[in-house]
């Protein structure tokens, strides 16, 4: 992850108003040489939150950027080179991004930030619908458990068969068959699978 990307990312958690900039937790930084394009830098300069870039580059141990910058500096080759280096050549390979408001940690692994949220952190639509097909809570715990186990076994078997099929079929055919199945068959089988999915 380049600092360009860090400068474009904010915390996406529901309810957070001040999600920028994300704090950086550094485990490993790598440097990769990138061809300098003055046109790109000149164009990007006005879109960059300068202080966030300076602070982020400090956390990477790079202290060459001036605290303040304005567009007139873009005529200086020296400035362009430093701006280029901080923005594009330093990568966070391992570490994390921290939401400044909630402290939520977004891991960065193999240079890829993971901004995926849990259900309770964002507005999800499909899950509630699923829950309505839940089996009623069992009166006798033992029986309920057996039923769940049976369903579990059933669905594992279905998934097992599906996996083997996947290997045999091309992805294209596989997609089509699933589409066909969903559109022609009664909803009985998929529903059973769903039933298990929300109990597990």
């Amino acid at each position, binding site marked *: *992850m*380049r600092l*360009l*990307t860090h*400068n*474009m*990312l*904010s*915390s*996406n958690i529901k309810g957070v108003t001040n*999600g*920028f900039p994300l704090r950086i937790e550094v485990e490993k930084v790598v440097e990769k040489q*990138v*061809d*300098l*394009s003055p*046109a*790109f830098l000149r*164009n*990007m300069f006005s*879109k960059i*939150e300068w202080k966030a870039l300076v602070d982020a580059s400090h956390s990477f141990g790079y202290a060459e950027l001036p605290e303040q910058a304005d567009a007139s500096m873009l005529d200086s080759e020296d400035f362009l080179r430093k701006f280029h280096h901080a923005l*594009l050549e330093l990568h966070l390979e391992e570490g994390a991004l921290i939401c400044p408001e909630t402290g939520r940690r*977004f891991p960065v692994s*193999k*240079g*890829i*930030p*993971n*901004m*995926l*949220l849990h259900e309770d952190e*964002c507005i*999800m639509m*499909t899950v509630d*619908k*699923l829950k309505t097909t839940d089996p009623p809570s069992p009166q006798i715990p033992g029986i309920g458990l057996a039923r769940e186990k049976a369903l579990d076994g059933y669905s594992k078997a279905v998934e097992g068969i599906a996996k083997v099929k*996947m290997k045999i079929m091309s*992805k*294209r055919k596989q*997609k*089509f068959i*699933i*589409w066909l199945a*969903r*559109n022609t068959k009664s*909803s009985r089988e*998929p529903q059973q699978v*769903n039933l298990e999915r929300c109990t597990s």
Partner: protein
Amino acid sequence: MPFRTAQIRLVSSHSEVYEPCDDSFALVDALLADRSKLIEHKPKLCMEVGCGSGYVITSLALLLGQESHGVHYFATDINPHAVRVTRETLEAHGVHAELISTDIASGLEKRLAGLVDVMVVNPPYVPTPEDEVGREGITSAWAGGEDGRSVIDRILPVVDNLLSGKGWLYLVTLESNHPLQLCLQMRERGYASRIVLQRSTDEESLHIIKFWRDSDRQ
């Protein structure tokens, strides 16, 4: 030298990641056909939502060139395996894109708004029951809910927000997604559109639609 796109033998794979298929090839063919216009367009930031194996974003990067041309790339996918596979595919071709595991462009929407000049999307478009949408792993690669539109309908407003004044969107759709209706909906958001490629396979009829803001004369 012929125009290069990603080489299938260099595209990385994983059991949970969508492999390049007819739809991926159709999208890259549409980009190839538009290559000279894309180069004239001089995009600075390009982006793919739902990058899967990385076949499309790698091809785009090979078509338009890298940093020395002043072009930068972003790609996202909701499936973290896909994003890692994309990284391998990009590296195998010696090109770079900034990658993020996220839902559509969540986390980028505030700061990247209005900055993307070219967006490419091959969404999960297969009509499926609604509760299949957004599942973990490979299912999310194709499950598109009712009319295959669930994810597409969530992506379009995000794309509208991210695209720059001169921004273009290339979108893969299926006949059953009602492409004409999609064009009319985007019309209301101020976009003109054209079907740049239509291809029927044994199983489906694919349309690649290009959208651009109506004020921007092509």
